[in-house]
């Protein structure tokens, strides 16, 4: 019995020692981002900066790794550590990091997040760096101005490295077969949906995004239809303008009649799969999904066209549809961080990045690249962005709950209208009220 007891206690001891050793082994060579970094005053001293990618995926991660590799070759003293964050959780990851004061040095940040992060004092203003940089005359000035405009203190907190534009992807082969004109106006758009629907053969004219992210799609279509500003001159929100009610009523009434029944829960993936597998003739997304379509559809059977024009013939686009690189205030190596920001926005990096992801470069010099000249979808985006009559409306990204209103009121609201639980008017009134309430609170806080 004594022996047994000893054996027993020995084995516990051994186990705990082994666990300790193994755990210690796991920590070997660990350098967390919380570890104090070397001060980077001297440019020869090796420094390490962390970079967070807000939209990691098997396609994008290798691109970032390539950009980082090139940057490190050009700047041997700076080591960049890449952290890829799944897109769905990226905002909450940033939120937690900001709350705990443990932000990365540089991050890829969507324009809509910039105002909020700036108010929370997480970002470093980049105005001085930008003014003194070669980038000043290269980066699309309207995108830069937009980023300044939405910040509460009108400072520049992010440099846009890729822009995007909502467009409609169409199956050109089906349109030709049916002899239907590619829609340029909203009347033609609705007619095309009707004509391209052939339920017996399992084909629909269009697919509505009724699930997650449907709010973005609807908002952009509504304003493209009306050509209105987000707020009128008196500061009243235009969401429930009669023009918008008229549009939403008609648009969502097409559900099930001319679009698949499953649309009510359509997220991005489902919607794009519908187009790529030959179920729908048109899908409203942006130029960024080019790569997905290319994978499943044959060249020449699809293309992208701008959103239909307003009644008076103007293109409308939502401002701020861009991704930026931002430097976080906590960085101990702001100069190294800025160097990386500059590198990401250089002609080479922007060209590599945007060609592979199918997005629109912001660096003017990239536009001369051959691939831009050969990419139909990028040319369409330029056609819209460079048209002097194109109207850019500005959603109130600066409202801290702008995004949560879209996610929690607008997304479910769309489903309720689609399923007939609510009228378009009730839904838009509710949406307008949420924005107005939030704006009142914001104006009070900042004494506007």
């Amino acid at each position, binding site marked *: 019995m004594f022996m047994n007891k000893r054996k027993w206690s020995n084995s516990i001891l051994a186990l705990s020692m082994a*666990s300790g050793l193994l*755990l210690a082994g*796991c920590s070997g060579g*660990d350098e967390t981002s919380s*570890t104090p970094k070397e001060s980077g005053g001297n440019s020869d001293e090796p420094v390490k900066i962390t970079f967070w990618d807000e939209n990691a995926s098997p396609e994008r991660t290798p691109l970032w790794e390539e950009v980082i590799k090139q940057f490190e070759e050009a700047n041997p003293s700076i080591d960049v550590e890449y952290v890829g964050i*799944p*897109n769905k*959780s990226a905002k909450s990851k940033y939120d937690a990091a900001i709350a705990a004061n443990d932000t990365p040095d540089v991050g890829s940040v969507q324009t809509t997040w910039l105002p909020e992060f700036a108010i929370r004092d997480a970002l470093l203003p980049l105005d001085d760096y930008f003014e003194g940089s070669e980038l000043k005359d290269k980066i699309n000035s309207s995108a830069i101005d937009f980023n300044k405009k939405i910040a509460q203190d009108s400072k520049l907190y992010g440099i846009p490295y890729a822009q995007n534009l909502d467009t409609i992807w169409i199956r050109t082969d089906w349109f030709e077969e049916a002899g239907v004109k590619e829609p340029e106006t909203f009347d033609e758009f609705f007619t095309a949906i009707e004509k391209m629907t052939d339920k017996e053969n399992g084909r629909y004219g269009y697919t509505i995004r009724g699930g997650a992210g449907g709010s973005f799609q609807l908002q952009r279509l509504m304003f493209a239809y009306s050509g209105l500003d987000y707020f009128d001159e008196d500061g009243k929100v235009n969401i429930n303008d009669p023009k918008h009610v008229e549009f939403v009523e008609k648009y969502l009434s097409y559900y099930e009649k001319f679009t698949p029944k499953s649309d009510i829960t359509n997220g991005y993936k489902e919607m794009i799969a519908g187009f790529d597998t030959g179920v729908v003739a048109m899908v409203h997304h942006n130029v960024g999904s080019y790569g997905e379509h290319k994978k499943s559809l044959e060249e020449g059977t699809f293309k992208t066209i701008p959103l239909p024009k307003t009644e008076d013939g103007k293109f409308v686009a939502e401002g701020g549809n861009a991704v930026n690189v931002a430097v976080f205030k906590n960085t101990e190596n702001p100069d190294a961080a800025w160097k990386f920001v500059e590198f990401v926005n250089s002609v080479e990096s922007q060209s590599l990045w945007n060609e592979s992801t199918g997005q629109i470069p912001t660096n003017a010099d990239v536009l001369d690249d051959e691939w831009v000249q050969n990419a139909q979808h990028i040319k369409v985006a330029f056609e819209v962005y460079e048209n002097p009559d194109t109207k850019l409306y500005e959603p109130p990204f600066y409202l801290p709950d702008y995004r949560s209103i879209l996610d929690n009121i607008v997304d479910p609201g769309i489903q309720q209208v689609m399923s007939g639980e609510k009228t378009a008017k009730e839904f838009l009134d509710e949406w307008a009220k949420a924005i107005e309430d939030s704006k009142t609170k914001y104006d009070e806080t900042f004494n506007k």
Partner: protein
Amino acid sequence: MLSANKKLDKLLTLYLPLALMLSFTMFPIYWTINTALKPEGDIIKRPLQYVPANPTVENFVYAWTNIGFATFFKNSLIVGFFTVIIVLICSTLSGYALSRYQFKGKRSFMLMLLCTQFIPRAMMIIPLFIIFKNLGLISHPLSLIITYTAVEIPFTTILMAGFISNVPKELEEAAMIDGCSKMQSLRHVVFPLLLPGIVATGVFTFIYTWNEFLLALMLTNQQSKFTLPVGLSSMMGEFNVNYGALAAGSVIALIPAVILFAYAQKHLVNGMGGAVKG
């Protein structure tokens, strides 16, 4: 006649429902494997291929080497293994105390254990992040091991207390009359009878750590320290999803769970039923 009826009965009440249930549960798994074995172009091609026309393992190779599943897998195993060990030791001992001893405040203690289960995980993220940051444990497997252990212990303690109550106290007393010490009677009498419960609790804990996403993402700021669910999730970008690699990654993530269940199946059924043959 009777035996024919019996056969029919068995078919209708046993085999048919089982077959139905099996097809429901197996279909997604079959589809995942099917997708994982297809080259990228074939995955969303119509008509659908129910058997891959050009089977390939390229997705597995890609997920394992290019995306870093080998690392994620190792991280998940480390976190899972140590969490299970710590949880089992703690919950067996505390479960024993709860089941065998009467002490003041026992009921309110049990209630407190239950109450911890009502706190939404998302609420704990920022406080946990700050605590681990101050400890210098962000991106360290220990942060996850500690968190998972703390999250799991209340539930597994209650579970274990239930299993231990099923072991007749008289067996322990008999062993002690025969000269065993408390520890010896625990080791030689209680533990062997408790094995199904321990296996069930261990499997339960392991599966939780294996699947947990939110805390794993939040407490890790280094690509090389991500666990499997975080790695899987970063396969789905906003504009592109690599279905093949995602499916291959899911299959890889499924393997340990399947092996574990296959091994623990017998114990698990006993454990869950709480039936201990004394």
